[in-house]
């Protein structure tokens, strides 16, 4: 696998959906397994090993879901923008398919970050929602993800949907830092010093470890989910081809 006709290994071999489909099928369970294992270890550390916070009590433990989810939500948008750009410049179909497959996972993590933020805010700040800079920019990030998915869903022509989505994702990538710093400035101008997300001055090593392991677990989950989704996208888009007919046993 991965060998061209001359016998040399070539990455381009996998840029065709037909040859990427089986590779994704082989890799997907491994990443899924890694995700389960890392999340299990991470959750164990966060619930049983990490010490109880002096000021927030056990409520702070939601940080182990909240922060990694927020990291992944931003990181996945960048990855999506990267593959969109590759698809737009090199005109490779698989890159666009990957970008399409990444969007729902990114939106999911954005939503998780917002939801756990609300759950965390209630016991610590006494309110479900604060117009904190990070929460607000997460909310706008969710809107960007939804816009990307809505645009792709609204366009029937597959190639046009890919390219239009790619342009939108790239415009979004340029805008994300601008939006983030605008919102940050806006919230420092508007709100008093009563609420601060960075109030924990020192973080125990085990807390950081738990958070990093959870982040790795979420990362592996993102890869596994994206691979599974891209396999579905490939089958759907290539359903007129012979190899898909052979793959699904002539049920097309």
């Amino acid at each position, binding site marked *: 696998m991965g060998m061209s006709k001359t016998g040399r290994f070539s990455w381009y071999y996998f840029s065709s959906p037909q040859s990427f489909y089986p590779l994704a099928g082989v890799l997907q369970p491994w990443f899924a397994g890694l995700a389960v294992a890392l999340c299990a270890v991470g959750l164990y550390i966060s619930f049983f090993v990490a010490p109880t916070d002096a000021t927030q009590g056990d409520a702070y433990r939601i940080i182990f879901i909240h922060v990694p989810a927020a990291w992944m939500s931003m990181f996945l948008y960048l990855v999506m923008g990267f593959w969109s750009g590759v698809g737009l410049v090199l005109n490779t179909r698989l890159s666009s398919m990957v970008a399409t497959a990444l969007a729902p996972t990114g939106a999911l993590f954005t939503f998780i970050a917002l939801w756990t933020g609300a759950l965390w805010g209630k016991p610590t700040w006494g309110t479900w929602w604060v117009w904190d800079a990070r929460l607000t920019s997460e909310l706008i990030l969710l809107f960007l993800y939804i816009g990307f998915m809505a*645009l792709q869903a609204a366009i029937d022509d597959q190639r046009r949907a890919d390219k239009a989505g790619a*342009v939108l994702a790239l415009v979004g990538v340029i805008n994300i830092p601008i939006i983030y710093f605008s*919102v940050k400035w806006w919230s420092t101008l508007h709100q008093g010093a009563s609420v601060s997300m960075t109030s924990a001055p020192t973080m125990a090593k085990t807390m950081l470890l738990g958070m990093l392991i959870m982040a790795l677990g979420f990362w592996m989950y993102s890869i596994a989910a994206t691979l599974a989704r891209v396999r579905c996208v490939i089958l759907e888009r290539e359903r007129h081809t012979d190899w898909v007919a052979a793959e699904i046993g002539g049920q097309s």
Partner: protein
Amino acid sequence: MIRALGWVLRRDLLLAFRRRGDVVNALVFFVIVVSLFPLGVGPEASQLRNMAPGVLWVAALLACMLSLARLFAPDHQDGTLEQMLLAGEPLVVLVAGKVISHWLMSGLPLVLMAPLLGLQFDLPADALGVLCVSLLLGTPVLSLIGAVGAALTLGVRGSGVLVALLVLPLYVPVLIFGAGSVGAVAAGTGAEAHLLLLGGFLALAVVLAPWACAAALRIAME
């Protein structure tokens, strides 16, 4: 290139002048939305003064967005857009001409109308001046970003709602610093920083948006 720009500008302005209703409607929408807020929250002058920058700016955002549908859709329907793509002149220049005429027909009327509405909200004179300057710098950015959204959704079903979904999140920085500049005058901190940043957004949008818009148009017309 300058001649092509002038040609698009003259043509679009003439078309808009022949159908004045569209321009007036967007402006009336702006006035109505702004006038609804005191009815919703009560006529207390101090509260209205606090809300005024945000209300005026959000209404301007919505009014600008509503007029985006007219930017490319009529030309797409009668085939003019296809001819523009085939023309020898760079598409970016033609797009720039269309965006400028869109701003003259949708953004500039808002700038001129805003001080009058600001008076309804009991804004002091210096805040009215800053409001005008902020709208003058900000509304071209709205037209530029909006043009990308309009090009992306060209001929797509449900494009009216979709363009709002795409464009409004991208308008956030302009809203923050536009409304913020007026608020800064009221707070006594001076609006220079906000206005400089708005100018920076305008410079960035002028450089990048016409290219993104031209790329989106090519994708749409493929």
